[in-house]
């Protein structure tokens, strides 16, 4: 039976159900409730909550725990998540799984507490040094947050790579009806963990040498890209214009699609559920007669639109124009989206790509 849960609390409980045994984190709005919830809940389950001195240290604690095979997580937002980038880079080069949760707040620097998607490019390209990617899960509801988190560690361990859950301020703060799956445990027979014996010491527990890493990284990234795309399409097959939107803006966009359809406009929506790998496969349904793609995102200058443009170019024949509604510090309303659509259709709005 579903119960009303706050998004951040649901993130915390879902991670526990997925097998998380260790949380290290630091307070930052709008995700502090994740840590607060776990500070009470983890002792109940005999697991470890640790308030670290900063977000960077928390991420490095995950390095140590993950190397020993423990399912672990951290969460942050804004500048706190920036502090974790080097640690994420280290986890990737060491082929270590871990769960990172970013409840995005708007803006560079201190930013503010508005719900936004302004970390999209950094989180999907790898914000630390080196060539790596994370699988980035992007729910648009609290139930979907729970469902995706339940798979997160399995994905992370499959590739020995960190996984990120990409949420946003409003999704973390609001409440929706949710039900949780049963508790599950991580595997106990991982053959690449550090166990103190030194038996697997001959080069880093089966990890490639530095010379072997470029090829290994490429293979991992290509495999993740091929196998881990998730998306949901809505009324795309006969659409003249296709919106592309993830997270909370995808919900208002869907409402806009319904209203426009009711007025006879043939529009549809591709909703990425993985921000990385971006769901190129979702674009297979776009009809050859499509007239334009419209990215709807809570960014300032357009970030998701770059992936929309690349996917459109690759998957759709002809030079389909790509437009972008960048709503900055707001979740765009259906009215706003419909107004923008009218401008696209009339030619008043010029394509970005």
């Amino acid at each position, binding site marked *: 039976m579903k119960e009303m849960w706050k998004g951040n609390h649901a993130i915390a409980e879902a991670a526990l159900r997925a097998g998380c*045994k*260790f949380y*290290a984190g630091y307070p930052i709005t709008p995700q502090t409730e994740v840590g607060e919830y776990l500070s009470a809940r983890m002792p109940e389950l005999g697991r*470890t909550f*640790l308030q*670290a*001195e*900063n977000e*960077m*240290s*928390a991420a*490095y*604690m*995950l*390095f*140590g*725990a*993950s*190397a*020993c*095979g*423990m399912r*672990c997580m951290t969460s942050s937002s804004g500048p706190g998540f920036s502090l974790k980038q*080097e*640690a994420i880079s*280290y986890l990737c080069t060491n082929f270590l799984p871990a769960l990172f949760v970013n409840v995005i707040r708007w803006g560079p620097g201190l930013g503010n507490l508005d719900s936004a998607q302004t970390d999209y490019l950094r989180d999907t390209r790898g914000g630390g040094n080196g060539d790596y990617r994370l699988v980035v899960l992007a729910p648009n509801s609290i139930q979907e947050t729970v469902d995706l988190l339940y798979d997160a560690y399995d994905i992370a361990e499959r590739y020995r790579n960190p996984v990120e859950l990409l949420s946003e301020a409003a999704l973390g703060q609001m409440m929706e009806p949710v039900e949780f799956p049963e508790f599950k445990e991580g595997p106990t027979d991982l053959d690449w963990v*550090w*166990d*103190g*014996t*030194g038996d*697997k*010491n*001959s*080069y*880093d527990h089966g990890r490639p040498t530095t010379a072997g890493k470029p090829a290994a990284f490429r293979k991992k990234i290509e495999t993740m890209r091929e196998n881990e795309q998730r998306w949901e399409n809505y009324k795309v097959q006969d659409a003249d214009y296709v919106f592309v939107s993830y997270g909370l803006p995808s919900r208002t966009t869907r409402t806009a699609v319904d209203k426009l359809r009711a007025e006879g406009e043939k529009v549809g929506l591709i909703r990425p559920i993985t921000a990385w790998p971006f769901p190129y496969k979702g674009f297979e349904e776009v009809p050859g007669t499509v007239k334009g793609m419209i990215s709807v995102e809570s960014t300032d200058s357009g970030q998701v639109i770059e992936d929309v443009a690349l996917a459109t170019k690759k998957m759709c024949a002809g030079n389909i124009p790509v437009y972008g509604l960048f709503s900055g510090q707001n979740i765009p309303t259906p009215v706003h989206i419909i107004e923008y659509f009218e401008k696209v259709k009339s030619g008043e709005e010029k394509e970005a790509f």
Partner: protein
Amino acid sequence: MAFEKRRPVLVEHTHTFCPGCGHGIFARLLAEAIQEAGYERKAILSLGVGCCCNMNPPSWSGDVLQTAHGRAASVATGVKVARPDLLSISYQGDGDAYVIGLNETLNAAYRGENICTFVILNNNFAMTGGQMSWTTMPGQKTTTSPAGRDCKVTGMPIKVPEIMATLPNVSYVARGAVTSPKNINQLKKYIKEAISAQINGEGYSFVEIVSPCPTNWAMNVKDSIKWIDDNVIPYYPLGVLKERTGE
């Protein structure tokens, strides 16, 4: 058998430290101490970045995690959360632990994490070619203090063990040196105490090791030792700064 001196298992392979480097002596002492405690197959070293990177396999035969510069304290903390049954040890240089990593180093001590931290103090950032560290002595020339360290603008050499000894959750703090057989033997006792404190669950233990850096100081071993005796140890006195209470 007590008479015998055998190569400890964990340093059976050669390492790539410079000739005369104090790291090599410390690494052997650490290997002896871990083996004597029976933990040679139950220990994970978290290495900082610096000359301690020379302890990556194959030089150290046990499990090693190469961590980020300054962050070994956090990684060692995470190791201990996941495997409280193993020895979790962070092994760093003074540039790593006291400069870029001062925050993480002190916070692990502050919380009283049940880990051991060992820091080699050689008055410079050695691996990168001898830049000034916070332990560089006043007037000491390094590649970033070519006129000699001006402590009025850069600070006096930092005394981290003294700070740690004030923290209630720290169980044991000592400063040793590798500058004579007597000091080496005394240092070994400090290392064994630190390890015993972790095994006993007493909280955070810490040993600082004053060491020569013949390469960057451009001195032979004998002169390096004299330089330490004349310049370093008077400022950084050897001994136990905080005794174990057994709790």
